[in-house]
Each structure stands twice: as C-alpha cells, then as structure tokens.
C-alpha cells in the first residue's frame, strides 16, 4: 500500500498524519459526551452521527500513521495507548463542550477548517491521504450544513441564545490561530505536495466564516496572536481528562477487544 509514498521523511509524515487523525479523534470523543444529554433527541442523533464520522476518519488516519511508523502500532494502540504529549491535535478540539451553543461554535470552526483542508488535500501527492480526504470531505460538508444551520438559528434567535453563542465565539476564537499557524512540519508537507498551504486554507476558511457569522448576526472577534502548541504535543489541562476516560478500558484491561 505504501508503494506511492511520497519522498519525505517517514517520521515527519507520521507526525503530520497524527495531527489530522487526532483532531478528528479528540473532537469525536468530545461530541460523544453529548450522547444522552443533548437538548433534544434529534440533536442527540446529530452530534452522535458526527462523532461517528469523525472517529471513522480518525481510524483511517491512525491506521495509516501506524503503517508509516512501521513499529506494529495499529489504530487502537495509537488511540488508546499514547500519553498526552504524543497527541498532536490543535487544542481547539479538546476545549470543553460548554452549553450546546458552545459545542456548535467549536463545531462550525473545525468543520469549516476540515472542509477547506480536505478539499485541497484531495489533490495530495500522497495517494492515501488524497483518498481519505476525498471520502471525508463529503461527510464534513454535511457536518457543516448541520452546525452552521444551528449557529444561524442560535445567533439570529433570541437575545439569550445570541448572547450565549457570541460569548462562546469570543472564548473559542483565539484557539483558531493554531489551526493555521504554519510550522516547519506544515511547511515541509506543503513543499512536498502532501498538504495544502495553511495560508490558502486560512483565506478560504476566513471567507466562509465571514458569511456564516453574518447570517448568524454574530461579530467576528479580533485575531489575537497568541499561539498554542497542541500540534506539537503541548496541550491544555482538558486533554488529560478526555484521555483518562477514553483510555480507561484499554489501560485497565490491556488487549481487551470485542
């Protein structure tokens, strides 16, 4: 399967694929917390379905990462047996669910990011990533349809709902900086034709958000230069709690399967 692997350092590609996979994995796990608690049965189904799609993407990406690494780690070992510092998701994904409005804001921000990223990644020179992107982008479009539909309803809804999502947006916006902050690894991937330039993804994301926020009657917060380092394994205090719950079973009963 790796015959068409691009000519790039395997360790770098492994790390990069984990960035993509961990973003989906951690966001999917977060959304899963809503199951049984969402405001209505339809929303319970909605967030659970999105979580399922995200975990499906994570499985494809982590499996691929494991093959690149070549040390015998499969998707389960990578998902359940890494330490916190070994996760490379941007820390926006691990931010708490808050109320339903805050969950929707986080979802719109990441859905739009994944949409613009995957659309461009369908042309990746890494055929495996190109095909995972081609599959995922369709699902992500549907996710954004759902999340942006809710953001418009809440933002352009009552005074209370508007105030809550505006406040969630103000809280979460600073974390979006990390999604687009291009470091050496992002640059290497773009130079090798494996990933799109994050600056191009950012421009498209920004334009898309502009439209969604206008429809939602929400104000776009100012960009602040603070940089987070989840993509390098330095996380907020929230990730540890997610991992404790997510990894419990494999830690308590190693090799358990069903």
């Amino acid at each position, binding site marked *: 399967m790796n015959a068409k692997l691009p000519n790039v350092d395997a360790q770098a590609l492994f790390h990069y694929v984990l960035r993509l996979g961990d973003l989906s994995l951690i966001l999917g796990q977060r959304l899963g917390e809503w199951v049984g608690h969402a405001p209505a049965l339809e929303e319970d189904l909605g967030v659970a379905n999105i979580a*399922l*799609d995200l975990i499906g993407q994570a499985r494809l990406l982590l499996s691929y990462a494991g093959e690149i690494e070549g040390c015998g780690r499969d998707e389960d070992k990578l998902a359940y047996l890494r330490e916190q510092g070994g996760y490379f998701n941007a820390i926006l994904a691990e931010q708490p669910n808050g109320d339903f409005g805050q969950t929707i804001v986080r979802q719109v921000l990441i859905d739009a990011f994944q949409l613009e990223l995957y659309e461009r990644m369908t042309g990746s020179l890494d055929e495996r990533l190109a*095909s995972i992107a081609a599959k995922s982008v369709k699902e992500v479009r549907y996710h954004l349809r759902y999340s942006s539909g809710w953001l418009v309803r809440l933002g352009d809804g009552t005074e209370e709902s508007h105030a809550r999502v505006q406040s969630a947006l103000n809280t979460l916006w600073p974390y979006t900086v990390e999604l687009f902050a291009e470091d050496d690894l992002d640059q290497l991937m773009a130079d090798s034709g494996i990933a799109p330039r994050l600056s191009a993804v950012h421009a498209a994301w920004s334009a898309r958000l502009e439209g969604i926020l206008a429809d939602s009657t929400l104000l776009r917060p100012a960009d602040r230069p603070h940089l987070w380092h989840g993509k390098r394994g330095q996380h907020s205090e929230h990730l540890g709690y997610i991992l404790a719950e997510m990894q419990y079973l494999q830690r308590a009963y190693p090799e358990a399967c069903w």
Partner: protein
Amino acid sequence: MLSPQERVSSAWVALARVEDPEIPAINITDLGLIRFVKIKPNGKLEVGLSPTYVGCPATEVILRSVVEALEEAQVGDFEVHTVLSPAWSSDWISAEGRRKLLAYGIVPPERLVSTLRDVLRGDRPAACPRCHSHDTETLSEFGSTPCKALHRCRACLEPFEYFKCI
C-alpha cells in the same frame, strides 16, 4: 476449475446476495458499494468495496459478509480492497435499489449529487412514502444510521426516513 469470466460472474452473483445489515431490504450491489470485480495478473480475484460512511458500524459487518460470500461461492483466491476514492455517493444506488428502499419505507435519495457543492444544499424528499403527501418537514438531518435523515409527514403525521444525498 472456473474460467476467469466465470469466477467474476459468480463473484457478482454471490455479492448480490449480501444484505446491508442495517437495511436488510437492499443488497450491497444495489447500494453501489462494489466498485469492481476483476482478475489480477497473478490470478487473484480482486473486489473493490466502498464504505458508505467511514464511521458506519455496518462497514465491518459488510466486509466480513463479503469475504464469507466469496468463500462460499468458491471463486478461488481473492482479496477485498477498500476503495475510498472516488468516494461513495448516493448517486450510485441502482434503480432497483431505489425501488426496494421505497417499498421498505425509506425514501430513496431524490437528487443527484454530482458535485461536492451539492452536498451543502439542503434537500427534501418528494413525498411521504405512506400517503404520498408533499407536505413534509425535516425532523433531523441525521437518523438511525449514518446514511439516513429523519422527516415527518404533516398530512398523515407519520415520521419516515430519507436516504441522505451525499
């Protein structure tokens, strides 16, 4: 010993008997999940299988059923590959598959999704599968399985499922 053509055609026959575990009314060839069946230069029969949704729990059951069906059909050495690109589309559900879905009470996808842009457009089923009223509403963009959305008929008040256009 079957000829290569016979192996391919018995594989298709066997695959047409594999049901979708969550929608038993329809088989996986009707759903458009089988991308190809061919004989490789080394003599192995190769089947290309596309998942509907990457996180769909039915995917693994389908893969196992495909392997079992091919073993039973004795098509000789074979391998099953997951095909992600081009990504599965509801456009690939056959006319026969659409009839079966409707008869089962699931409104088949109404609209062709020829481009990615189309996925972002909201869409509605044409009519209630029970009373055929056009007065329907969306209850949820997501339903009991990843491939379906939930709607309700305002005329007969019954909820019904609609296959997502993706």
